């Protein structure tokens, strides 16, 4: 793949990379760094892409591997997140109920999940099938379903706790 073709590939899949970056970083600088790291890893790995899976599946693997296991700054991002701030945002969501707010709250909620659960919920929101999620993450489908139910419950309970003011 030539550089201009690769640049076009990145532009076409910009949303995919941005979502991974937004999930795994807390500051603009970290986000930019992770974006760059993912682009570099994609560029280095693309000659080995053998079309054995969908291109987006392959891109998710590279992006998630880079964000989850190869990138250290995310630990700081998680450590600085604040549960109180999150629950406040959930409350605000009921009041303003607009898409932007909902999206912000969603990101805030997901930011409190462990790294692997973040990846699962992201793929779920992207409407990926469990089969494709298994292909990206390497977790079997049954286990993924169990985990997904648990994640949904986690998010529900956090919302409920705020509604009851506890």
């Amino acid at each position: 793949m030539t550089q201009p073709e690769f640049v076009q590939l990145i532009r076409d899949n910009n949303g995919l990379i941005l979502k991974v970056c937004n999930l795994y970083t807390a500051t603009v600088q970290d986000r930019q760094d992770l974006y760059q790291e993912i682009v570099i890893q994609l560029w280095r790995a693309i000659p080995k892409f053998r079309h054995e899976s969908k291109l987006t599946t392959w891109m998710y693997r590279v992006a998630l591997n880079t964000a989850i296991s190869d990138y250290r700054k995310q630990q700081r991002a998680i450590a600085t997140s604040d549960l109180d701030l999150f629950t406040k945002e959930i409350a605000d969501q009921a009041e303003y109920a607009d898409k932007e707010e909902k999206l912000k709250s969603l990101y805030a909620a997901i930011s409190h999940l462990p790294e692997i659960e973040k990846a699962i919920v992201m793929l779920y929101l992207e409407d990926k099938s469990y089969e494709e999620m298994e292909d990206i993450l390497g977790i079997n489908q049954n286990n993924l379903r169990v985990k997904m139910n648990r994640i949904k419950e986690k998010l529900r309970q956090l919302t409920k706790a705020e509604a009851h003011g506890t």
Partner: protein
Amino acid sequence: MELDTLKEIWQDAGDKNERAPRNSEIMEMLNKSPKNPVAKMMRNVLIEMTLIIVLFGGVALFYFIAFKGRFISIAWVYIITAALYVFYYYRKWKLLHSMQCVACQVKSNLQRQVNKLTSYVRFYLVSGTAIVPVIFIFLGFLFYFKFPEGALNPIFPPSKEVTLFTWTAWIVSLTAITLFAWWGNRYFIKKLYGQHILRLKELLSQMEEA
């Protein structure tokens, strides 16, 4: 919060809220070096190896030329030591190189990283510790045979004066130095890689728990 109702909002996000980087910005990124821990470790290994080759090579060259060639054996010690170090760095670099598989499934990539990093750390500890007594013994022999008998007494007494005490003193100091090297290596390994290995294991256990 019902996730299913938020799917649509989520799928619209990303493209709308943030601008896509310009072509020139993406092109610029491609020329940069990766910043991930493994890439950094690989760069460090190459830097350390270059330093060893330059320093040891320089010193060896000095001993080859200076003192009218009387200390050529010392020059060879440096060359052999440098060769051992090059092998050591090559092995480290190879382990690091096989550590990354960004296009693999996330779980298998994590598993691979844990396994390779554990091997890397074991190799670091064993070879980093073993090299100390090896060089110590090597230098001991060199000085013993190179210098005139008794010149370095009492560290290298003439062979007829070597007593049980001399042997004991040598064995005790060798053991002490080796233990110190082992402790020092272990401390640095824990400081450098301990947290990273723990984090990888924690991620893997998150994936494995049902």
